């Protein structure tokens, strides 16, 4: 067996020079310090993405993306197909854990200022992927074509519509017409299974290559305090094995959630039925939804909604561009302002999310 593998390795090596890669991996080290735990969340996000690709492809074997058949096909998956309930439940739960893991990853990178020079591109690709993850969530939510999804999509696309000048065309593009109909479902289906995964894979490739090439960033205060004192751990196999162990734990968590809290299907969407009482967006959109409720209808001459959306757009843009305006961190200096902003954002999101759940 080992001999055969060696022959195979030599055959490939002869053609593509694997030894460079092996040598590179052998020399790769991960710094060990008090904040090392955050290094694992990128890997967890990656693992959840892989889960989504696998379960997503499985769902595609039976899912039918049309107004008449979408709801029925998921009912079919959940009731007739062997383990269909499990696959769908895992896909829904992994989607939520994916958003959560990506958020933790993003905030940990922000607070340790790992986005600073020379890792601006890694941060940018990461942020773009994060927005795509939200897009995955939003588009995937509609695919079962149930009541909640129908109204969530109506509200979500309507919000895009209030942006001055460009909002309306964007809304019509997203909906495939003036209203949320079967045409919207077809579009969202296309975005969800083809457009987004394609773009995401490219960004992920760049992101991972950069991480490999530049190595792990160390938090500023540790780097300034003389670094982790040279304390490191080989990436292969030490760090990788720890990564895999955590993946195993996440997989178990996922299995427990999917089995004991199976995802519901709800009622089929009906364009002529009123919105059900207590309708709420997914938890990761909750803070924005809740904020819009508090803004008065009219602020001076602008509509409250427009104001809220512009506020979130600008905040999101500034957040994405943080490596370019945080000059202090780039120079390796302590920057308290960044930390305060970060704490404020985290507190705001948590507070508004709780308020949203309570109301």
């Amino acid at each position, binding site marked *: 067996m080992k001999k055969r593998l060696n022959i195979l390795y030599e055959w490939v090596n002869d053609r593509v020079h694997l030894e460079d890669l092996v040598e590179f991996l052998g020399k790769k080290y991960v710094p060990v310090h008090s904040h090392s735990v955050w290094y694992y969340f990128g890997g967890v996000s990656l693992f959840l993405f892989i889960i989504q690709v696998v379960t997503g492809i499985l769902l595609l074997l039976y899912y039918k993306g049309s107004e008449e058949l979408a709801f029925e096909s998921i009912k079919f998956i959940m009731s007739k*197909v*062997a*383990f269909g309930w499990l*696959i769908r439940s895992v896909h829904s739960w992994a989607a939520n854990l994916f958003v959560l893991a990506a958020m933790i990853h993003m905030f940990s990178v922000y607070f340790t200022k790992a986005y600073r020079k020379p890792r601006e591109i890694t941060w940018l690709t990461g942020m773009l992927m994060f927005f795509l993850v939200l897009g995955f969530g939003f588009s995937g939510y509609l695919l079962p074509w149930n009541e909640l999804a129908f109204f969530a999509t109506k509200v979500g696309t309507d919000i895009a519509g209030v942006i001055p000048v460009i909002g309306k065309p964007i809304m019509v593009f997203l909906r495939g017409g003036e209203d949320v109909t079967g045409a919207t479902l077809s579009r969202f289906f296309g975005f969800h299974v083809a457009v987004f995964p394609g773009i995401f894979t490219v960004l992920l490739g760049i992101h991972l290559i950069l991480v490999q090439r530049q190595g792990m960033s160390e938090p500023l205060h540790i780097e300034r305090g003389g670094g982790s004192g040279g304390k490191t751990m080989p990436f292969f196999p030490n760090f990788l094995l720890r990564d895999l162990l955590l993946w195993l734990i996440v997989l178990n968590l996922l299995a427990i959630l999917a089995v004991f809290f199976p995802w519901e299907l709800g009622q089929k969407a009906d364009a002529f039925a009123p919105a059900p009482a207590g309708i709420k967006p997914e938890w990761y959109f909750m803070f924005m939804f809740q904020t819009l409720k508090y803004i008065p209808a009219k602020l001076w001459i602008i509509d409250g909604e427009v104001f809220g959306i512009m506020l979130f757009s600008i905040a999101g843009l500034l957040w994405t561009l943080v490596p370019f305006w945080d000059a202090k961190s780039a120079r390796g200096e302590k920057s308290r302002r960044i930390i305060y902003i970060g704490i404020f954002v985290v507190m705001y999101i948590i507070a508004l999310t709780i308020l949203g759940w309570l109301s």
Partner: protein
Amino acid sequence: MENRTEQPAQPRKRELLMWILSGGLFGMAASILYPLFAYLKPPRLGEVETSSVKAGKVDDFQVDSGQIIKFGTKPVLLVRTPNDEFRAFSAVCTHLDCTVQYRREKGVIWCACHNGTYDLTGRNIGGPPPRPLDEFRVVIQGEEVLISKKA
């Protein structure tokens, strides 16, 4: 002395650990792969068993012609022969699943996919088909043409 008692215990402990670990890994792989492969297999749809269908009125069918009739989910070819007999066969070619048709000029049942031919008793007489078409029973009840499965 102590060394000699400990030494043989270690490999056994290691072996046990190996068994537990690889058994656990194997169990995990099986518990993931079994649902996965079970999921891949399309479930049986509760098909309504069709035993007979009404094809139509006798006058709906011309002498020396053939027509495909829906028999449950399967196509059946109903032929009214030149000597005014009704015959029905499964329209599924025994070669590769294409749907056959009645060819008036030649008085045969013909499959367009690979040029297979059957005579009007369903016997395979030319081309690749390996066996005759399955025959169905035709009963004329007053004006109605009824097709049913041969017992």
